[in-house]
């Protein structure tokens, strides 16, 4: 069943078409990758899906419901969470409070503060930050800040998680751990839509890959199909 259904979505900044007439589907249980050269419109597309930007045209349906033009907090509460390309943790606040914000405000079925506290403990354990629960988020390493963002997003109990460059700036060990984390997220029943530049990672963890170029969908297919596609190779390596 299609969880996310995007039809003909476009976003212009002045004369520049950042995203242009893109159609895409994400089905429940998948890990879908989104790749493309710098400036291809990947993050803009995520901003449209999560409500940070309003599209000029097109529609977004999530769980069968039209969410086009809704505000970010409304979209989050409907079960579509995200992380950020440049980490946006709540720096002065302890790690646990970062996650608590997601658990309290992002999950409409959350009833008590006690439940929220249990959820925080669960998510911190899941991303491996239990020992750092009381550490201010800004004092964590970059890899851990990215994990914390993940925990905050997961605490909202999303059906779909948009992950924007989880691995950028991480060392090889941390990249391997991040890949494991994404696989675990999927195993727990959350569908993942991920932007990534680390090719080894994206080829390994994705069921399907979508390629954006100049704001348009250039190709779509399994990792093998994408890796051997002539058009994709031309875009990345030049003709």
């Amino acid at each position, binding site marked *: 069943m299609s969880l996310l259904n995007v039809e003909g979505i476009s976003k212009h900044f002045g004369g520049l078409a950042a995203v242009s007439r893109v159609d895409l589907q994400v089905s429940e249980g998948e890990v879908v990758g989104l790749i493309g050269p710098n400036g291809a419109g990947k993050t803009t597309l995520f901003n449209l899906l999560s409500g940070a930007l309003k599209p000029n045209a097109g529609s977004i349906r999530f769980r069968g419901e039209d969410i086009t033009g809704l505000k970010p*907090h409304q979209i989050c509460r409907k079960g579509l969470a995200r992380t950020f390309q440049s980490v*946006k943790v*709540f720096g002065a606040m302890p790690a646990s409070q970062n996650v*608590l914000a997601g658990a309290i405000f992002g999950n409409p079925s959350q009833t008590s503060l006690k439940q929220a506290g249990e959820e925080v403990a669960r998510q911190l354990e899941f991303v491996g930050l239990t020992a750092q629960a009381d550490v201010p988020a800004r004092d964590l390493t970059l890899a851990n800040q990215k994990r914390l963002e993940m925990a905050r997003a997961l605490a909202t109990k999303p059906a779909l998680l948009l992950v924007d460059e989880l691995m950028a700036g991480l060392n090889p060990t941390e990249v391997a751990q991040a890949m494991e984390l994404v696989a675990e997220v999927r195993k727990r029943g959350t569908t993942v839509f991920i932007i990534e530049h680390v090719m080894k990672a994206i080829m390994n963890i994705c069921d399907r890959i979508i390629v954006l170029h100049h704001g348009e969908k250039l190709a779509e297919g399994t990792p093998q199909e994408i890796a051997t596609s002539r058009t994709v190779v031309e875009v990345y390596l030049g003709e």
Partner: protein
Amino acid sequence: MRTGSLSWNQLRTPAVWGVLLVAAVTLTLYASTYSVILITNILLYVILTVSWVLFSAPTGYISLATAAFFGVGIYTSAILGDQLPLPLVILTAAVASFGLAAIVGALTLRLKGVYFCFFTFGLVELIKHVLLWYEVSVTGLRGRFVVSADHITVYYIILAILAVLLLTSYLIRRSRVGLALRSIGESEEAAAHAGINVSAVKTMVFALSAVFVAAAGAAMARRWGYVDPYIAFDYLYSFTAVAMAVFGGVSRFAGPIVGAVAFAYLRELLITRFPYIYMLVMGLVLVVTILFLPQGLIELATKAPWRRLRGPREPA
């Protein structure tokens, strides 16, 4: 070491608040008229400062609208003073100010940083001049006489407003709204994507903080007897609230209170003792404080030498 009974550390804060409350409530029994008036003034500044901190400290939105809300309170009292009993006048001022702040907040809280700061400053001047124009060209009044109240009544009203304000801001700090405000201050974008209704939270708390300022204005006008738009909408109240908060430190609950009390008392002392150089000394004290205690006076409470001897406080 923890024992079954309550330790002094756990009891200290409630004990201090209890003593302060009893001293404040019984003040008029033992204090001179001058002291009551002085302390009323000091408590007024605590109200302005704590109200400012309630919204601006966690969110990082620097508001200079304090004087606008204060003026709304003063003029409500001036216009309705002879028609309604005082509690109703204060209530009306609070509601009017809440409405004004909610409208202004909804319109302008998308402005960030210095733009929001300038807008709120402009609001004070805008209301002042609209009122001035209205008074001169419609009612023909330059200023207004306010029904007066005795200083003891005003003292108790100010004390009551302060008590409600302190309770409100204490509860907000510990509540979900406090968590939302701090998240917004750290990253508005991430807060929205974590499910926080950013504009609603900001607007509501901004409006709530205006309520206490206007209520205090409505009460204080009773002591002044005469007001005009320049007296009521004096932007110095806006700057003073910010200065007192920074002077005391906003990182802890008691910081702004200590800041406002110390600042207001020091000013009173200097004006009466050294009327010619008081501004100079005041400026010096502020500069030295910011240089050596960037977190405000409240830093003394954590840095003091006797603290170091006793070792770190047990985590709560």
